[in-house]
């Protein structure tokens, strides 16, 4: 392999690893954030209903 071929092979490997890592972190952390967002929006909806 030439220098460019080796470099792109390594960069591609790192890209796949980082992509997968971000997926795992986001799936786990995102589930918790959804709960927080729903509570916040329901609170806002109740407040607006009381005001009107």
């Amino acid at each position, binding site marked *: 392999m030439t220098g460019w071929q080796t470099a792109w092979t390594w960069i591609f490997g790192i*890209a796949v690893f980082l992509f997968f890592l971000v997926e795992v972190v986001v799936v786990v952390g995102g589930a918790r954030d959804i709960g927080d967002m729903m509570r916040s929006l329901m609170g806002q909806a109740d407040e607006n209903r009381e005001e009107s």
Partner: protein
Amino acid sequence: MNFIWLDWAMIVAFLLLTTGIAFMTRRLISNYDSFLLAGRSLKLYLGMATMGATELGLVTLMYFSEQGYKSGFSAFAIGVISLLGFVFVGKTGFIIKGLRDLRMHTIAEFFGLRYSRSTQIVAAIITFAAGLMNMGLFLVLGAKFLLYMVGLPPEALPYLMVGLLLLVLLYTVVGGMVSVVLTDYVQFIILFTSVVLTTYFAITHVGYDAVIAAVQIERGAGGFDPFLSDDLGWLFIVWLVFGLPFTGMWPPALSRALSTVDGETSRKLYGFIGLSFLGRALMPMMWGICAFAYFAGAHAVPLPMVDGAPDTAAAMPVYLSQILPNGLRGLVVAAALAALMSTFDSYLLCWSSILVNDIVLPLRPELKDRQKILLTRLSVVGCGLFVLGWGYLYSPPETFFRFMAITGTMYSASVLLTTAMGLYWKKANTPGTLASLCVAGLLPLTTIFLDGSGIVPPAYEWMIEDKVVGIATFVASVVFIVVASLLTQKSHPPKVLKPVGTGGN
């Protein structure tokens, strides 16, 4: 037809799930902020999911794979530059932190605050025009992918486009940003998993060594060295580097940053999700390169033709339709639908919010929340219809990625560059910004509408080539804002921004 019952079952299950979420979240929309910005309650990981799903659209998979097919491994340089851009924005908070701290809804709103109402409207019009043209190819590329993956006849293309548009309009109009965020989370999981699996099958079918050999034989050194590439070259790399500080700031992505709980979360969002952006570019490019190796071989099915030339955008879906196992093919199409919808809905919502917030509201400030939501929903439908027509009638002169890049430049060299100047250069004023907006908003139109039209004499065609116009646009924009601002400091003294504070809503 390439599909069996299992493939169809996966798609139906996915559609029921996402549209169900859109209807269930309807009761949570109590005001305009909750419709458009999910009440500004996005935390880091959910922000990453929604930004990741939004920025990895079916159109992204299609244009990157086409670029990989045409440029070989040299196309990877695009992904590397994009990663560097995200690292820069994530480290410095360039533009995004300043906008979030000022509690802006959209980027054009900043122009009203820092410059003048007329500047806000001009910036909004340029953003809206560049965005709509850019989005104009989403439907046609998405429909092409589905057409070749499912194995439908080419005559079905316009019907597929209409069907996809109706599907996206349905839950964008109903749910607003809350449903967009929740469906983005589901779509993020399906999409990211499918991309990794597809990459595995795409490479193992032809073999990595065979891929490298095919690119070496057919493309030579230019298939690996971006500076020697016939398709890319020095000018293209310089053009991309000019746009590097504005990476990931296309308004739909920015709207995610502005929906976060504070400015610091906006900055972190870019730093973390940016890590996935290298894979976002390189994996679909690798599908395209594998498709190139496959079609260069002796046992390939014929590549579809358009106007007598091979349809390079069709190479990846045709290749995947031949190599993916049953069931996984259905999952990939469901993921592709997820990719299309998560991107398309956010973009529709974003351009509509710009139309309402930055063009209509400065002229009609008395509008109530209910009227604003109705107007936003109507403009979502209008934008969707425009995209349907534009995608059907317009063909870009170069690759689809390069069309995306020039419409991106139309926005970043005008609106983003002047935003940065407004945030970080005290002498930027209204005349300078207007001059910069106009020149950078108009120059890219030369390549969009004239390149390949045959109107310009062959000796001057280089002047309207996208790479030349892209670089010229950035340079002209900086020159115009600096010179015009300095010349008009006395007649138009710059406004001083008062910070709102950095924490909370």
